[in-house]
Structure formats: C-alpha cells, structure tokens
C-alpha cells in the first residue's frame, strides 16, 4: 500500500447501509464503464473513452462525503463521483453517444456536463486546472452567503502543474473558501510519470505553500478516502478553509482507450490489479471485517447490471442531434443565431453535405 498520512477512516461514521451504498456505486461505475467499452468497440461512442479502472474507490469514497447541495467538479476519471452525486447512467450513455437528448444536447463530450440547480456538479472543460478557480468562486459564494455548503474539485497529478490550479488554490486559501481539493495521483498524466510532472515526492506538500493542510491518503481504500474527505469537508463547512488531499491510486488503463499504455510495464499494471484493486479490497473487508454475505453483494451486482442494460436500451433509442439546434443558446438574448447567407432558408442543407467518417480524438 502507498505511504500515507492517514489510517483507514473510522468505519463507525458510516452505517451498514452506507457501506453497501459505497459498494454499489463502485460496482455501478465499473459496470457502466465496461458497457461503454463495448459500445466504443461497436463505434457507438463518439470520440474517446476514458477509464477509471482501479480508481473507483477514490472517486466514490470522496464524493460520498458530500451532501446533495454541495458542489462538485469532476475530472474525466470521476465517473464514480458523478454517479454518487446524482448523474444517471442514462445521461452518461447518451452523452458518450452524442444523442440529441443528452445532457448537453450533443455539444460536449463524455462526462463534461453539469447541473447547478439540483445535483450540483459543474460541467468542466478540457483545459486542465481551470475548474479550480471556478470552484473557488462557487465556494466563496457559499461562504459569503453564510450557507453551510462546501465544494470539492478533482484534479490529476498532471493538472497540479497548471497555472490555473495554482491561482485557484491560492485564491481559495486566502479567501478561506470551503473547498476541498482532491489531487488524484494515479502515477501518470497521459504518458508522463508523476516524477516528471513535479519534483516534490509528495504532492500533499503543496498545501504548506498555500497555508492550508495537505494530507495524503490511500485512494484505493474507499473507506479511508471517505474518512479523509469527510474530515476535510467538515473543516470546510465549519469555516476552516480549504484542504488539499493527495489520493494515491493508479491508472490501470491507458490515458484513453486508444492508448495501449506501452510506457508502463505489464507487471506493474498486473501488480496493482491483483493486489490493489479498490473493489476487491473492499469486498474482502465487507465480507470479512463487516460480515456482509457474498450473496448480498451479488444481488447488488445483478441489480446494477439490469440498471445499465435498461439505460443502454434507452440511450440507444435516443434520437441523434439535429443540425440547426447548434444555433441555439450561445447567448441568453438572442437565443438563436442567424443562419448563413449561402445556406438561404435551406436550414437542412446540411443533409446534402459530405459527412466525414467519425474520428476519435486522443484526449479528454
């Protein structure tokens, strides 16, 4: 296991129900991702597919420490966090398949979507680090209004190198924003190992430079992840300002599906899969220490499979996007852009156009 500051969190804070819920979210994450892989191979996913295999504990454990009214900004590998926070498999599937009724109506990819009305996750953009200042502003708003709400922003080890990360964390620290910054150190940023990203041995040590606590936690221990996040959330909610959490985990797949991860040895990947899979580790604890019956877990697995199957059917039946819908909603007023002169009133002119073969990009 990774060298960490914390011992697995006191399980007493979670009820038996919570513990099963954590399991269910992790399983749902993995099953849904496996479905996405199948759809990707059938070329039904438009664009790239990004896996969080082996990182589900980190995503689920941390997000589970939030309340519904708390805000969260996910990374590309936080499918689990999105689900915990209320995103549905159907939304995710429609989004990956670029459907007309997807959460962004086909404008954005994968889990780049948001809901600041109800479930409070904020649609991120690709530019790494940019969500940190945005979440600083959201949580500053909470503080200024005297609302007991917090925010949580995920960044990767790679994103810590960006200027936006730095400016955002510093802003949040100075303003004592109720913001938890989770750095998912999964060993790589695309092909770049963490040691080539940052010369510090512990990314948690960045906290001191901002005057905020920095802690490291075993991100593949879902209970530890939850406990450490819950503590940071509690501190933030009580007015204690931001915390930087470095979650140690490992990316067991390439950056995206097209990447065969040639820059990592097969042994290392196998080692993590065999000895440090967050679901396996958790199952062992649940069935051991917590006396959960294996059949109970199997029942969850079966229900999850049905849920993903049903969502897939619905998503596949969803309509594609309609070209002219692209012109709606850049501004509040006017809501619709004018057409282009050479298309005349033939707004459907696009149907005669050549259609370049779909061609996945290599990035998120």
């Amino acid at each position, binding site marked *: 296991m990774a060298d960490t500051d914390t011992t697995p969190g006191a399980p007493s804070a979670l009820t038996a129900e919570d513990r099963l819920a954590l399991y269910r979210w992790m399983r749902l994450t993995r099953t849904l991702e496996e479905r996405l892989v199948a759809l990707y191979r059938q070329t039904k996913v438009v664009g790239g597919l990004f896996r969080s295999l082996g990182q589900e504990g980190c995503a689920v454990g941390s997000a589970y420490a939030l309340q519904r009214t708390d805000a969260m900004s996910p990374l590309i590998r936080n499918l689990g966090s999105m689900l915990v926070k209320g995103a549905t498999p159907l939304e995710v599937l429609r989004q990956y398949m670029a459907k007309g009724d997807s959460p962004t109506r086909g404008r954005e990819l994968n889990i780049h979507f948001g809901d600041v009305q109800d479930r409070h996750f*904020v649609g991120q953009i690709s530019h790494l680090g940019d969500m940190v*200042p*945005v979440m600083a*502003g959201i949580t500053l708003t909470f503080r200024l209004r005297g609302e007991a709400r917090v925010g949580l922003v995920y960044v990767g080890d790679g994103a810590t190198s960006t200027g936006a990360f730095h400016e955002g964390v510093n*802003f949040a620290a*100075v303003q004592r924003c109720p913001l938890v910054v989770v750095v998912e150190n999964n060993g790589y940023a695309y092909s770049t190992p963490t040691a080539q990203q940052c010369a510090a041995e512990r990314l948690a040590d960045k906290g001191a430079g901002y005057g905020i606590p920095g802690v490291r936690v075993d991100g593949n221990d879902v209970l530890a992840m939850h406990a450490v996040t819950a503590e940071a959330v509690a501190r933030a909610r009580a007015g204690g300002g931001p915390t930087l959490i470095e979650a140690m985990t490992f990316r067991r797949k390439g950056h995206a599906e097209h990447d065969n991860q040639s820059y990592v040895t097969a042994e290392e990947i196998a080692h993590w899969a065999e000895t440090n899979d967050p679901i396996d580790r958790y199952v062992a604890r649940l069935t051991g220490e917590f006396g959960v019956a294996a059949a109970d877990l199997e029942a969850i697995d079966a229900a999850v499979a049905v849920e993903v199957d049903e969502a897939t059917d619905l998503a596949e039946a969803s309509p594609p996007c309609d070209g002219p819908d692209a012109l709606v909603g850049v501004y509040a007023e006017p809501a619709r852009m004018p057409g282009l002169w050479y298309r005349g009133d033939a707004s459907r002119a696009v149907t005669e156009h050549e259609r370049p073969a779909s061609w996945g990009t290599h990035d998120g």
Partner: protein
Amino acid sequence: MAEVTLLEAIREALAEEMERDPAVVLLGEDIGRYGGAFKATDGLLDRFGPARVIDTPISEAGIVGAAAGMAHYGMRPVVEMQFIDFISCAYDMLTNYVATARYRAFLPCPIVVRGPSGGYVRGGPFHSQNPEAAFLHTPGLKIAYPCTVADAKGMLKAAIRDEDPVLFFEHKYLYRRIKAELPGPDEVVPLGRARVAREGTDLTIVTYAATVWKALEAAEELAASDGLSVEVLDLRSLLPLDDEAIMASVRKTNRVLLVHEDTVTGGIAGELTARINERCFEWLDAPVRRVAAHDVPLPYAPPLEDFVLPQTSDIVRACRWLAAY
C-alpha cells in the same frame, strides 16, 4: 447637475448597481482599501464592505474563474483588471470557460470584466493595449467600449445587468479628460447599439473609444477648411456590432473611413470592412479605408507613440483622400 469625469461615471455605475442588486460584487487587485489603481472603486469598500468589494491575489485567470463560479450561483461579479493588458493572462479562462459556459453546459455566466485600456498615455507596450480584437471571434462574449460619460455609466449598468459575460473597456486617456453632466440614475444604455456622434452627409467615419474624439476633431476641421460634412459613428459596442446603424450611415454617405487605435492588421476594421462590403457593396463610391496604429508593439517614448498611433491629422488626410476619390 455637476459635471463628472468618465472615471466618476464608472464609479457611480458600480455604486448604483451595487445598491440596486445585492448580487453585484466587485473583485480585483487593490480595489478595496486602495480604491483601485485608477481609483475607480474608491470609497466602495467603506460603503459596501469586504464581502462585496473583494481584494484578490495577483492572478487574473484565478479571479475571472472565480467570478464565473460566483455567477453560476446567482452572483453578478464585476472584475477589475488593474490594466486591461493583464486580461491576456485570463485569455484561456475567458475564451474557453466563460464564453462557452451557457452553450456547452447551460451555465449562466453574467460577469463583467472591466479595466483601463488604450494608449496616448506614454504607458509603453504593456500598459496601453487595446485587446478587443483578440476576443472578437469568441462567440459567447460581448464587448463594450464606450467613450462618453453617459455611455460609460449607462453601458456599464447594462453590462452588469446583462445575462452574459461582457468585456468592458475603459479608455484611460479619457478617464479624467472627458467631463459631462449625467442624466438620471437609471439611464441604462443598451449594449449592441451604435451612436451617431456627429451627423454628416459626405462621408462616414466609423470608430470607437478615444479615436471618436479625434474623429470629431477631424470632422470639425474638415467642415471648416474643406466644407465637408462628415458623419461620425461611435460603435460603442463591438460584439455584437450594430450592423443596422453602420449600414444606414454607409448608405447615406457612400464613403467610409474606419478608424481605430489597435494595430491595422487584425484590428476590428477588418470585420467591419467585410460586413460593409457584404451588405453595402452597391452603395460604395470609394473603397473602405482604414486609419489605425502601425503594426508594432506600442512604444513608450512620446515621439514614438505619437508616430505609431493614429492622430487627428491622419484622419483629416484620409478623409480628404476619400472625399476626392
């Protein structure tokens, strides 16, 4: 009513909007106790307190990003760039995050980013910029650049009330040089509409910001010396552009001179020429011409700056050329 400067008009607009709407908050470097590098926010900290006048670290991307987050959750942040030149540090955040928020994620993002811009002040290459053209091809942003006291106040109010992000440029050469009486407190000047600064029939100068005043000087001179009747159109709003007003003037005078302080290459005059050409080609009795800065970083020494920037005499000469065409 007493006359106020353009700078005071900005301050009044901020104060009135803060009074009107508790969601309006200010963010920026040294805007609190110090009142801002140009004193645009002077006194507002005392009046509205530190929860609404927020001094920030030196981090333009961070500030703009934070403002966007606040705006998603119902606030109306107004961000000051100490000099507009530093907006380039927030270029990614503005063009990628802020401008697209509504379209890609249905996130409301009503922020204003304002600050002192422009040259003629011996500020050198990094305190004199006119960055508007860099944002012109960013759907989702609006751009305002007023040059009168009434517009500065009324358009800033409109910008703060707008549901979308607005870049609001304030020409620092005009801050304390322009004075006028202000209309009542609720004169909101809508974005997207140009202003006829002077009526004329022989040719049209389309311009904005400090060069509106130079164009007016030139028009005066041409009326006296050449008997030319020059119309001066102050765009005020650069995104969206007021096509109707532009085309109406061109159709009336049939000759157009475009003037701006930004460099000639890549400045907004290009877009204007394209639009005029597209809609008024048949009305043009002469080519549309541009008077703008030389294509160099703006130098600091007075003789150099004067040489690089458009001057009244340049406009006069260009108008004569057009009128004689």
